[in-house]
């Protein structure tokens, strides 16, 4: 297995904290992900997983702490700024425009243009089509007619498009928030194939998932959240599902995380 040394840290958080008024949704999260590493974030509902991701992607502004991308502190003002810096997120509720075709969805909000003229810039449809094909190839997704509108596609195909979106752009980090939660068995397999493809290409990825089998099949490391704190940081090769469940439910706490007990 790849050695994840400190030299190739992609994203690091230090003391990342989010309070909603008196509610401490996230408390002092120290987290690291390396180049090519696939990390699962697990935890019960309300454990702080989504809050954690929302601080990284700047959907919300953190109360305290630092987020470092390639060693540089970042202060994204919006999810768009985070995306422009290379953090691509696949949201739980698919952020797709149903009536548009695949290239339009991939390039939504960042269209390629031939001729710049404010909002009336001329679209470069050919370049977007080609980049779409390249992006789909990278993820191993095959959609013969990408000019069909998304509404004519199945849930799995739509999810694949949403994921291909992250791959079509030179992203530094991909975050997926329960990408298979709403999918059937075959479609889940398809999405998991995409994750494997990304792994093969050395793309780092954070996966929020409740699916133990999926996590053990695909990920390198599991970070468990409990009551707004990180309570365990486990290598998949050194742990087992029972152990992870024990951490999730609070029956067990990592030695290095005493305050999470």
């Amino acid at each position, binding site marked *: 297995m790849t050695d994840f040394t400190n030299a190739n840290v992609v994203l690091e958080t230090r003391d990342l904290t989010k309070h909603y008024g008196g509610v401490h949704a996230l408390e002092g999260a120290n987290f690291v992900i390396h180049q090519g590493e696939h990390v699962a974030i697990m935890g019960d509902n309300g454990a702080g997983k989504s809050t954690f991701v929302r601080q990284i992607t700047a959907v919300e502004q953190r109360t305290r702490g630092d987020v470092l991308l390639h060693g540089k502190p970042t202060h994204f003002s919006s999810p768009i700024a985070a995306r422009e810096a290379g953090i691509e997120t696949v949201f739980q509720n698919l*952020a797709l425009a149903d*009536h548009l075709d695949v290239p339009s969805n991939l390039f939504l909000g960042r269209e390629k243009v031939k001729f710049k003229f404010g*909002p009336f810039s001329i679209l470069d449809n050919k370049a977007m089509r080609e980049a779409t094909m390249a992006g789909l190839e990278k993820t191993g997704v095959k959609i013969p007619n990408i000019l069909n509108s998304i509404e004519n596609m199945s849930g799995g195909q739509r999810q694949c498009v949403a994921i291909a979106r992250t791959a079509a752009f030179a992203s530094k980090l991909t975050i997926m928030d329960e990408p298979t939660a709403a999918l059937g068995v075959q479609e889940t397999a398809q999405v998991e194939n995409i994750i494997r493809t990304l792994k093969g290409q050395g793309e780092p990825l954070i996966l929020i998932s409740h699916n133990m089998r999926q996590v053990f099949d695909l990920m390198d490391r599991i970070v468990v959240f409990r009551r707004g704190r990180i309570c365990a940081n486990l290598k998949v090769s050194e742990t087992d599902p029972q152990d992870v469940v024990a951490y999730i439910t609070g029956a067990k706490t990592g030695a290095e995380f005493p305050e999470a007990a």
Partner: protein
Amino acid sequence: MSKNQHGIGGLTFDSKKKARAPEWNVFFALLLIVVIFEGLGQALMGQSLLFDTGDRFGTIFNEARLKIIILQVAIIGIIALGSTQVIILGGIDLSPGSVVGVTAMVAMSFAQVGEINGMANPKLMFEGIYNLPVILPVLVGLCVGILAGAVNGALIAYTKIPPFIATLGMMVTARGAAKWWSKGQPISFPTDGYAALGKGMMPVVIFILLAILFHLILKYTVYGKHTYAIGSNEQASRMSGIKVERHKMLVYTIAGALAALAAVVLSSKNLTAQAGMGVMYELDAIAMVVIGGVSLTGGRGSILGTVLGALIFGVIISGFTFLKLDAYYQEMVKGVIIVGAVVLDQFRQQRAASRM
């Protein structure tokens, strides 16, 4: 796995050809309606609606009627071009009829001639303002329309009130402004330059040029893409970095500008402006848009569809006149057709949803 399917992990992607463009359906509806009126004409009147039977003009078609069909929808058609964009965006605009009223009044008061039959014009709106070059009243009119559209857009984008309410407010306010402008008096006697804008087939020329322009804009620019995207999924558009509020302002402003152009053409054609001009035009425009296959829920439709919708509208009105039916029936049938078009759209959407 059949030949035209591809996939991995058991998931296949159908490579069926892209579905037929919905504009074809509208086109077939247009043909069907023409055929119905032809049949009724032959049966009831012993005449043809569109063809030059009896060689009265020595042409294949009855060109006079064709011209009337297009001419009578051209001005409302200009409004409908704006309504198309607003409705694709997922909104609605009830104000253009009233904006036509106020814009016509304001524009006309800057378009008056100084002398009539060698006498000073006694009906001048502003003393000393007469015989201005034609571009000035047009620009002033455009400014009025742009202002009204921008207010609509700002209300909808930034106060988040429903478009229905915001533009209803504008509809009432703009009509009031139209009456206030000249204390209810009509404004007449435009310069020859201004009068030329609506003369003869000019309204049709202007309508077609604008239709081509906005067809290209909606199809080939970022503006068009974002209009469809917001109408399709506003939340996703926002998450994707589209400046949704700014874009809404822009679309409503353009709709206002198009209403203003319609007002200029209309007042020029009538050689007068009255506060009551354009009443109910917004509903006729929305009817053209809906008949043209634009979805009231947003994200779907096209300028081409609206142009075809306008033609259907024109054929129906001409057809009723041709059959010498009372105007009451026209209105009633118009209502039925609008509702019918929306019901069809609902069915289409349910079918699309059931495929998922």
